[in-house]
């Protein structure tokens, strides 16, 4: 995706996210004294930040919903391309503080290998994410390690290294809110994005 397009998509997501956010509960009260001077300014900025964060979260949720919708469409026989796309984009999850690939994710990864081999012009970006525990900064390292582990597996199974790139978002882009294992387990993940050749995916 070009930079311009990415910005356009992000802007659209932010706008729609903000709109959706208006229907939700008001942002949490952030301090006991929302009254005077600099606090009011801070509060306003905090609310703007909150809105931006909700928009980002909303974008993430929309993406997940789209992925699910794509998978559902594929089950309905709506098209091989959608099915292949859903398989390629399916999230890979990890255990706490670990970057080892879980046994129950091998089938998920092997299916991606098959699609990448059937579509040699496709290139992907793998982003590594962590849950909120651990330090903010060190989690960038853990996220990169997770993305690298996925890339290494795909490389070992015959996908050319040049078709994949890795990035880390650490704990900065949670898909699930909350401070419990249900949220954490969803947030410990690698996500996939098609960066080239995704127009007409073939099934293996």
């Amino acid at each position: 995706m070009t930079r311009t397009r990415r910005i356009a998509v992000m802007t659209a997501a932010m706008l729609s996210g903000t709109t959706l956010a208006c229907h939700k509960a008001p942002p949490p009260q952030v301090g006991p004294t929302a009254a005077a001077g600099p606090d009011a300014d801070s509060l306003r900025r905090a609310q703007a930040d909150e809105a931006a964060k909700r928009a980002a979260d909303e974008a993430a949720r929309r993406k997940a919903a789209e992925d699910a919708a794509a998978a559902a469409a594929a089950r309905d026989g709506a098209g091989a391309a959608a099915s292949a796309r859903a398989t390629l984009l399916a999230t890979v999850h990890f255990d706490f503080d670990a970057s080892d690939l879980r046994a129950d994710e091998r089938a998920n990864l092997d299916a991606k290998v098959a699609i990448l081999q059937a579509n040699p012009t496709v290139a992907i970006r793998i982003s590594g994410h962590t849950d909120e525990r651990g330090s903010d900064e060190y989690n960038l390292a853990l996220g990169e390690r997770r993305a690298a582990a996925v890339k290494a597996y795909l490389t070992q199974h015959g996908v050319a290294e040049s078709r994949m790139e890795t990035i880390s978002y650490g704990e900065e882009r949670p898909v699930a809110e909350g401070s419990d294992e249900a949220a954490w387990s969803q947030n410990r993940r690698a996500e996939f994005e098609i960066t080239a050749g995704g127009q007409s995916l073939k099934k293996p």
Partner: protein
Amino acid sequence: MTPLRRAVLVRAVLLASALAPVVSAQDTTFKGLKLNGVYDPRRDKVGIVVLPVSGAFGDSVATIIRRDLDLSDRFNVIPLDTADPSALRATGATAGLNYPLFAHLAAAAIVQIVPIATGLHVALHDVARGQVVNVSEFPLPATGLGRDWRMGVHRVSDEIERWITGQRGISGTRIAYVRGMSMRIVDVDGAEEITVPTDDQSMSPAWNTAGTQLVYNTLGANSHISIFDLATGRSRPLIGPSRNTTYGSPIFTPDGKSIVYARAGENGSDLFMVGVAGGDTPRRLTNGQGTDNWNPTMSPDGRRFVFMSGRTGHPELYISDADGANAEVLTDYEQSDKNFRADPDWSPDGRVIAYSERTRDHFQVRTVLANGSTPKYLTSEGENEQPAWAPDSRHLVFTSTRTGVRQLWIIDVESARMRQLTKSAGARLAAWSPRFVKP
């Protein structure tokens, strides 16, 4: 002020403050005094009165300076509730200040401020000696109450502190931090917050020793390290972006010539050093062999650094020579394979490393001496992380969730007094500026 006068003053003040708590325990209304039943010259504070200030912004001047002196944790700022200002003056021909009255209030020092055309004329009275012992004039911008004006008033507070304790205060410093994904700078009293236009998705600011630049990393597909110049308001890319690479936790070396940063790629992460001008080949400092190595902090003499490493399977703090040689574990106490020790910051006086540690599933701020001895806990309530030292090596800013949302807090490590700095959610990754060289 001559050395002799200073020596006399310090003796006088120490004597006065040594006597003050005995009186204050009985009959005064000191703010913030922690006696604990035992006199401790390091903890007990100098009683000080800031007289009312005349002029258009006089009330603001007095309020800011009283608050600065209070937040320094070195003074008892004694409130003057008298309805009769004439009581402050002695009777008779000399008509000086009524020193016996101030002595009775347990004040050792009196600050007297008079507005002048160029700013403020400030006199410091020593109550025990009954005379003025310091006088100076401080420039202020002609327009009152702005950001620069407030900084000018903070400089008065910091100089008063130097007059009395021999060490310049820190009220004229600032704290850079991240909220959402934008960089903020706020005065240490919580006022005058600004947003600075760093690159998108910026994290982890660190100051240079002159307080003129911030180095930081960015997140995501264009992860890179940039240096932001406060005078020009512009960022200059230094390292990255590079394919399959995430950059993090950059710092300036104390000599200002280099940046040390973490680089995560195909095979774990290591620390590297590169010149601030960029262009030279980065030199690898750690030999992580596939593990993660992050969060460097250097000793003020630039000869050693501490960093976090997962080389034994869980993050601990390590210490090594400046070239990366002789790395050994610093946090070798209370060892457990569940340890998570992070966010080290070396104090500007070189004595102490502050860090955060996960203990029983919660992060707390701790300190340990640079030789690895005397580990202490500073916090216990909520999640407390990312400590960063003030230039006085006595105060730390850190993140805490004790109010339910993550905020920046400041602690005085001598007295354990804490205060909340930010008032809006999600503040983190704070870096305390040095004392600014030029007004």
